């Protein structure tokens, strides 16, 4: 079966088959085309479909805009919640929205524009204002307006908002409760004098927020590294720009919360690394084992750790050398072996060993390995477990012939994923246009739509 070679043929095919799941990915291409009306008729043929499509997170925003042309609260609510909806469509819904749940959905939508949020603030209740305050697009003026209304609901959200201006933060600090003051202290726009004062606050919650504030001067952050509260010290260490001084690099810590943070930094001293490698807390050792700056000798030691999570972390560390990975491939725990199975730098001999493993996790790892040979992938593509077969589909190097077999997988999700594999020719993907599962037909149509869109390059020559 040959895939439609141009937009006209594609749209005609979608209309002829009268299949909304084929037509949905074609909608953008139908914009302004003579067949747009017919494509829309396929997509809007039942009220159930409109409701389903209003909810679909991958429905094109142009189609969501079309859905709300007819006023219907059930559809408006779904489109107002759909993350793909653009700001113009949200404005259109707002112009007629009466229901509170729709207005709440608009207030919390990430594409709601500053003007819409200001309007919702002006006409809304405290609950809607709290949602507006937590929306990243709310302007400083809107945040000030919410504050000026006097209700304390949402002050914490205003205080952590990136658009809250310094004077607003000062006002919240002066009039708010402890959680709101803490949020104000953590805001990068917090006035410098307030921030400095708060570093000496009796409340650890406020000092923690200060320590995490990216605008805190280094001198103050250094002071907080000596704070009696471990949470404050951990936050100060996390936010401390590197490289750390020699003294800080080797610093002893009695709190495992802070030592876990030390183990994640890439600029700690080798003496500290050695101490952390012998730490009694397994999470300290796990973080160290994942740290790309941990030296090979320490990684070698951690790869023999009693805790399987530490050994697994070594296996996931991009800096772990190949011989270490080969040793971990023979680990007694399947979870550790699975951690190295998908690594392209795993030596071939070790990978061959894992190809015969009995664990589903390990086999799925091998199936995802871009260096796995064709015959191994072919075998794994016939495995009885659907997740192993799916892992083959996730392998970008899997040969087209192997992926092609998976187009007839019993598990519909596997077929839907296989259809979109970049190694398959578009013509081959299109053979799934009559699949019994809507998600597979959608994926097949999306592949063709992408090949016909000038914005997305198509690789027709990959098939082997």
């Amino acid at each position, binding site marked *: 079966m040959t895939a439609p070679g141009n937009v006209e043929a594609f749209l005609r095919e979608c209309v002829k088959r009268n299949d909304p799941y084929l037509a949905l990915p074609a909608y953008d291409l139908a914009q302004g085309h003579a067949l747009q009306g017919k494509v829309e008729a396929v997509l809007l043929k039942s*009220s*159930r479909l409109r*409701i*389903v499509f209003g*909810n679909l997170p991958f429905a094109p925003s142009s189609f969501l805009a079309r859905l709300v042309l007819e006023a219907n609260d*059930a559809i408006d*609510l*779904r489109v107002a919640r759909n993350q793909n909806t653009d700001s113009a469509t949200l404005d259109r819904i707002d112009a007629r929205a009466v229901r509170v*749940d729709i207005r709440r959905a608009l207030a919390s939508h990430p594409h709601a524009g500053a003007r819409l949020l200001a309007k919702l603030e002006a006409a809304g209740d405290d*609950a809607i204002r*709290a949602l507006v305050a937590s929306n990243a697009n709310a302007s400083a003026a809107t945040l000030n307006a919410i504050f000026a209304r006097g209700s304390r*609901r*949402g*002050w*914490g*959200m205003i*205080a*952590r908002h990136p658009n809250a201006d310094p004077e607003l933060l000062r006002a919240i600090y002066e009039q708010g*409760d*402890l*959680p*709101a003051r*803490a*949020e104000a202290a953590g805001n990068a726009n917090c006035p410098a004098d307030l921030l400095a004062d708060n570093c000496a606050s009796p409340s650890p*919650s406020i000092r923690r*927020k200060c320590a995490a504030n990216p605008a805190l001067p280094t001198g103050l952050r250094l002071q907080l590294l000596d704070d009696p509260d471990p949470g404050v010290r951990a936050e100060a260490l996390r936010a401390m720009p590197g490289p750390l001084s020699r003294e800080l690099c080797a610093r002893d810590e009695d709190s495992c919360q802070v030592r876990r943070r030390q183990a994640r930094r890439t600029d700690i001293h080798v003496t500290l690394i050695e101490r952390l490698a012998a730490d009694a807390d397994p999470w300290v050792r796990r973080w160290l084992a994942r740290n790309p700056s941990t030296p090979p000798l320490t990684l070698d030691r951690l790869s023999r750790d009693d805790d399987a999570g530490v050994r697994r972390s070594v296996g996931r560390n991009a800096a772990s050398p190949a011989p270490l990975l080969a040793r971990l491939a023979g680990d007694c725990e399947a979870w550790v072996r699975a951690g190295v199975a998908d690594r392209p730098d795993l030596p071939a001999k070790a990978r061959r060993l894992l190809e015969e493993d009995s664990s589903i996790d390990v086999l799925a790892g091998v199936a995802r390995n871009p260096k796995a040979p064709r015959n191994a992938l072919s075998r794994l593509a016939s495995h009885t477990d*659907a997740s192993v077969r799916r892992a083959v589909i996730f392998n970008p190097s899997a040969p087209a012939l192997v992926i092609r077999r998976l187009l*007839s997988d*019993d*598990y*519909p999700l596997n*077929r839907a994923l296989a259809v979109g594999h970049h190694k398959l020719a578009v013509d081959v993907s299109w053979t799934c246009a009559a*699949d*019994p599962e809507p998600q597979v037909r959608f994926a097949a149509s999306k592949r063709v739509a992408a090949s016909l869109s000038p914005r997305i390059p198509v690789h027709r020559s990959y098939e082997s």
Partner: protein
Amino acid sequence: MKILVPIKRVASLDDEFELRDDGRDVDPDFCEYDLNEFDEYSLEAAVELKERAGEGVVEVVAVTVDTQDGDEILRKALAKGADRAIRIWDESLAESDQIAVARVIAKAVEHEKPGLVFCGAQSADHGHAQTGIAVAGLLGWAHAAVVSGLSYEPGAPVATIDRELEGGLVQKLSIETPAVLTIQLGINKPRYASLRSIKQANAKPIEVLSPAEIGLDPAQTGLAGSLSRVRRMYIPERGRSVMIEGAPAEQAARLLEIVKEVNG
């Protein structure tokens, strides 16, 4: 021998839904329909018995009481291994409750004469868990509910079954056949239908019978044959649950206040 597997098309609701104008059910625009999950397991149990017995020993017949919309789940059953599919319907069956549906299935059993009937333990939408047991009662057959294990040689006079009880207890019992078993989730792993079997199922006929054709008295169908009637559906007013809003620190502080209030 023959195993009859009654199946049902059930509705799953959207997160937000509206009721019909008469207030007695959910508006179908807000429902997704599919084969009842419990029936996937009862069907699989029947198909596994058939496959273990070898060619031609066991016939699996799926049956549903539904409008033409029910053909979709019958095709699904055929694709998963049922040999035949029967749909029983006419307008007199509208508004049937679970007992009226059981009357239809009991007549279908008399019509088909199976050795076993496998029902799902309950339907995922209404959850009465009565249809299978009512079928057994109407037929005067032995029955067992919530079956989680099954050992049976086709044609044998007795089946051995496990039933799940409270506290993790399992009851093992023998049951004389013919019998009606209602099958619990987890008794097996329902298969996915292969593309090939889906295509083959689409070509198979579905036998459509009216209640009269299986000998059902009109006085026993629909509302007349029902023992209950839905008066209305509604969402009761919410209880004391409260959503805690605000920044994480605010939420934590409010939670602490609530704990203190509750503890006095």
